[in-house]
């Protein structure tokens, strides 16, 4: 089977899975957030499994032992849609910081809204940072990890965006560690690419960065250095 047919098959299953899962998730509006999330994450698990079946693209995770037992701020490289799907299964119950426009997508967005994301208006920078810190602290207290893609958007393989301070500021304000995560998903599933390359995506979870005695800029720099260096190395391995 050609790669186009495989990618098309994946896409059909992907869209169909949204049509199936979103109404189920919406019907569970009355559940507490974490039990509801346990249903939502099955969707992420399905899509990643479906990707392996259709496109021969699987993954492996190194450094799981670094995930703290209590909620923290996870800062990750963002190269493709893949990590938003796979992380649902890899990490403990978490919420995303995302642009609020994503919640306006029919079905997908509505389901996402029920996962209690921190939905920010990107154009209102000042307010967005305040919201990340305020809502982030609340979610951390509720037992949720926070996933932030500090570059703000998907960045092509081989490139790095400026790491925004929000995640590090939240971690310092909440006195919880920052967990840096690198991966090479962009080498297999590009930023807006329809075709997927078969292979094994490597996700590497780094040692947590303690915030005590550091200012947000210092925490951010440490995370940025680890993530960019590790991503560069993983891209060479892909």
């Amino acid at each position, binding site marked *: 089977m050609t790669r186009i047919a495989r990618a098309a098959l994946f896409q059909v299953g992907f869209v169909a899975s949204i049509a199936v899962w979103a109404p189920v998730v919406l019907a569970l509006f009355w559940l507490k957030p974490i039990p509801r999330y346990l249903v939502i994450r099955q969707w992420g698990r399905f899509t990643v499994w479906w990707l392996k079946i259709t496109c021969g693209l699987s993954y492996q*995770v*190194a*450094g799981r032992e*670094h995930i703290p037992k209590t909620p923290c701020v996870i800062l990750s490289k963002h190269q493709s849609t893949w990590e938003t799907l796979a992380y649902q299964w890899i990490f403990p119950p978490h919420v995303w910081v995302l642009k609020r426009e994503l919640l306006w997508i029919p079905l997908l967005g509505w389901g996402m809204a029920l996962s209690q994301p921190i939905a920010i208006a990107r154009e209102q920078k000042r307010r967005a940072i305040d919201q990340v810190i305020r809502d982030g602290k609340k979610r951390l207290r509720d037992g949720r990890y926070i996933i932030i893609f500090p570059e703000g958007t998907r960045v092509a393989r081989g490139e790095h965006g400026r790491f925004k301070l929000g995640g590090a500021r939240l971690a310092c304000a909440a006195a919880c560690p920052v967990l840096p995560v690198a991966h090479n998903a962009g080498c297999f599933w590009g930023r807006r690419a329809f075709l997927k390359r078969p292979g094994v995506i*490597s996700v590497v979870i780094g*040692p947590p960065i303690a915030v005590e005695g550091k200012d947000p800029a210092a925490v951010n720099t440490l995370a940025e250095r680890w993530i960019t260096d*590790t991503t560069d190395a993983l891209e060479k*391995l892909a």
Partner: protein
Amino acid sequence: MRLVILDRDGVINEDSDAYIKSPDEWQAIPGSLEAIARLVHADFHVVVATNQSGIARGLFNVDMLNRIHSRMIDEIHHKGGEIDAIFFCPHGPDDHCRCRKPNIGLFEEIATRLKTNLSGTYAVGDSLRDIVAARAAQAIPVLVKTGKGSSTLTKTSGLDSVAVFDDLAAFTSALLGGGLAVTP
């Protein structure tokens, strides 16, 4: 099970950018064979996990690899050591296999064949590939400076939590001397 997993090129024998294509090109790193013997005498099982993309590249075939490994095993026996098994990946980078390190396949195979889980098992390598694969398999990565080890160390950040030793002999001394937590 007391188990140690070793990469081959750059850990047991001198690495070569031109690949190890014949028994004559296989030259042990000084002290590595004795280190394997010391591990075995301390009741460790030793297995090898090695990428051999030279096969996919057509530089040598599996017969030749077996001859190279015969020489390696002979030399190890000579020093009183033993290797339980050699797990190798014959594929190249474009074969999309699951066994070529940094992928996890060789380690999964080791765990299945030896009916053990790898948590707490040390996996010694000289490159980032070895570290990523070991981590992904829940083994404990160890980096040695022989082979590509020194350049891995200078080129890669984020290795802070990986134990580093000059060579296999130094790692073995630390492990047997209690300088590392011993596996159950």
